């Protein structure tokens, strides 16, 4: 199944990690995970706390050994290789900068350990410092840096030895919103410039969507879905994935007809339409959950064009837009989101009876 040629950066084959004695008494941090990450990919592991993201990175870096399975890096089996023999570097969540060394010494550490010649070390250090825009602070001690600066040093230190794969464990979680945005752009740029495969861990869905080539959504040691950001966002296969990535309306319905990856569903709320169908899911007449993103709904004045209708029960304002909670006759509630365009929004008030249209191709059937 995972007959990937040597181009795959990382091939994780049916790998499990159990902390403790066995499945029953220990913690199953990774449960029979298989995953192929391509060369030069910006790959993100996304999932709630405790789902095994860090564990997966630690297995790749070599800090932990898999209980079952194997990991292959560019065709090379990693089993038994200690961390210092793997061409993989980590940017730790807590940075783990060496406090007794300056910024430049931190960055040159890996190169020194690889016994690179001094001239090469100094030129690489210079280059990497430039890459993360820290040239002016080369001689500072690392405990005299701000959080964002420390983050850059951690990044530079991991990049300097030119690893084949860079592992980043929630490197941005300690930063404030603005700095975080900046660093997201910068990370993406660095990945493009260096061509190194990035495996990035986050539990921030927005971060995952904006930065990644592909995302793996994890829960309880399992990988639920792997795909590019739009597949993950627009075509979530599982209820958990849909729920975890942004706001979503989940409505009850049943399958009327099906055709490959599409099905016609009848919503309890009234509308009948086409919805995406996950692989080998759903039989005719089956009760299913149908997901619709709040921004795929819009108000329409004309009742004839409406797919759903209901009363506005709640309005919340979040700066760039409004969320409307609408109670439908079926007893279900939907969330509708529209952009803030000044006066237009004032047309819809609490208690108003409204008609709603669903955009084309925006419904998706979920499995549990």
């Amino acid at each position, binding site marked *: 199944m995972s007959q990937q040629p040597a181009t795959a950066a990382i091939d994780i084959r049916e790998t499990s990690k159990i902390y403790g004695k066995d499945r029953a008494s220990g913690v199953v941090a990774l449960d029979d995970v298989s995953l192929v990450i391509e060369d030069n990919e910006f790959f993100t592991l996304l999932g709630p706390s405790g789902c095994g993201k860090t564990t997966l990175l630690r297995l790749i870096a070599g800090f932990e050994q898999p209980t079952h399975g194997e990991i292959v890096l560019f065709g090379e089996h990693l089993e038994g290789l200690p961390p210092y023999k793997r061409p993989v570097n980590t940017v730790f969540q807590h940075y783990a900068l*060496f406090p007794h060394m300056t910024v430049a010494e931190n960055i040159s550490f890996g190169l020194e350990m690889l016994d690179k010649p001094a001239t090469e070390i100094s030129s690489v250090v210079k280059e990497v410092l430039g890459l993360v825009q820290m040239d002016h602070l080369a001689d500072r001690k690392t405990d005299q840096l701000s959080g964002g600066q420390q983050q850059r040093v951690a990044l530079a230190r991991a990049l300097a030895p030119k690893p084949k794969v860079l592992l980043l464990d929630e490197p941005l979680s300690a930063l404030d919103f603005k700095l975080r945005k900046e660093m997201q752009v910068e990370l993406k740029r660095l990945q493009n410039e260096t061509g190194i495969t990035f495996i990035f861990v986050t539990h921030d869905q927005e971060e995952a969507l904006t930065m990644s080539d592909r995302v793996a959504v994890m829960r309880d040691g399992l990988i639920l879905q792997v795909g590019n950001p739009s597949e993950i966002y627009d075509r979530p296969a599982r209820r958990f994935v849909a729920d975890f990535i942004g706001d979503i309306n989940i409505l009850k319905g049943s399958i009327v007809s099906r055709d490959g990856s599409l099905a016609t569903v009848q919503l309890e709320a009234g509308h009948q339409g086409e919805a995406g169908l996950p692989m080998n899911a759903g039989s005719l007449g089956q009760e299913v959950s149908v997901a619709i993103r709040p921004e795929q709904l819009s108000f329409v004045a004309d009742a004839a064009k409406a797919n759903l209708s209901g009363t506005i029960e709640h309005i919340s304002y979040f700066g760039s837009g409004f969320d409307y909670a609408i109670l439908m006759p079926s007893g279900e509630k939907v969330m509708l989101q529209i952009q803030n365009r000044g006066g237009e929004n004032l047309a819809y008030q609490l208690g108003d009876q409204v008609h709603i249209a669903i955009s084309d191709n925006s419904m998706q059937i979920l499995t549990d």
Partner: protein
Amino acid sequence: MGSGMTDQPTTHIQLSSSVVAEAKRLRNTRYALLAPGILTIFCIGIMPLSIVLVYSFLEPGDFGGISWVLSFDAYVQLLFEEDIFDETLSFTTDYIQIFLRSVSLALFTTIACLLVGFPTAYFIATQPPARRNAWLFLITIPFWTNLLIRTYAMLLILRDQGVINLSLIEIGLIDSPIPMLYTDFAVCLGLVYAYLPFMVLPIFASLEKLDFRLVEASYDLYATRFKVLRRIIVPLAKPGIAAGCILVMIPSLGAFITPALLGGGKSLMLGNLIELQFGQARNWPFGSAIALVLMVLVMLSLISYLRFGAKKGTPAHG
């Protein structure tokens, strides 16, 4: 600190007298609070030391003690020997040799303590927290027994009919006992045994604070075990290592029971020399002078360590 200062300039003139009074009151309270500390330092630090200092510049009394006559003989005696008949002085290295032997024995002891103590401390620091206390407890158990008793025990182990020699003869490795007692080796062993906890405990304290995630980070950056030790662990444990070395070196220099029992008459150390002056030789000023010279030397080496050693302490790359 800012709060008291920011609003003062405007009301400066009117308030100045009361501000001064307030400052004075504060200063008085501070001294009152510091009094116990100052008193302690004076009573157990400065006063005895002053007595020793004064005594070293007096003449010995006939039956011990001192007689109140100013004299530099005690210091002269350290380097020169007085001929009993014509009272001429000739240079002697007797005491210098005892100094050097003491220093080298203390150095060996410190190095041995470091070589044994560091791995021990590392081992304890890497145990799960619950088990650490048990290990620390074991390390401190010997303190519960008098040093004299423990040194006698060491004597029983090392002597010709001791455990080591008897068992070696029993298994046929040797025919006649290896003389171990009354050698520098025995003294060193005794000192290492006595002062090892003083090395282990401070190193443990700094290793316990060490963030082992840094060790992981350096493994990740291609450092082998030995390089991690040399580049990360030792530099970060340096304060503990320095404290341990000082805590072992200084009492070893002045040790007295151990060399007396395990070194016999041959391995005289400074501690024994000083004891001799206050005991049999009844030359208190000379004993005081040796003690002071020892103290000054220790102080000078500590100061030079702090001035030069500590600054170089941050390892440059390469």
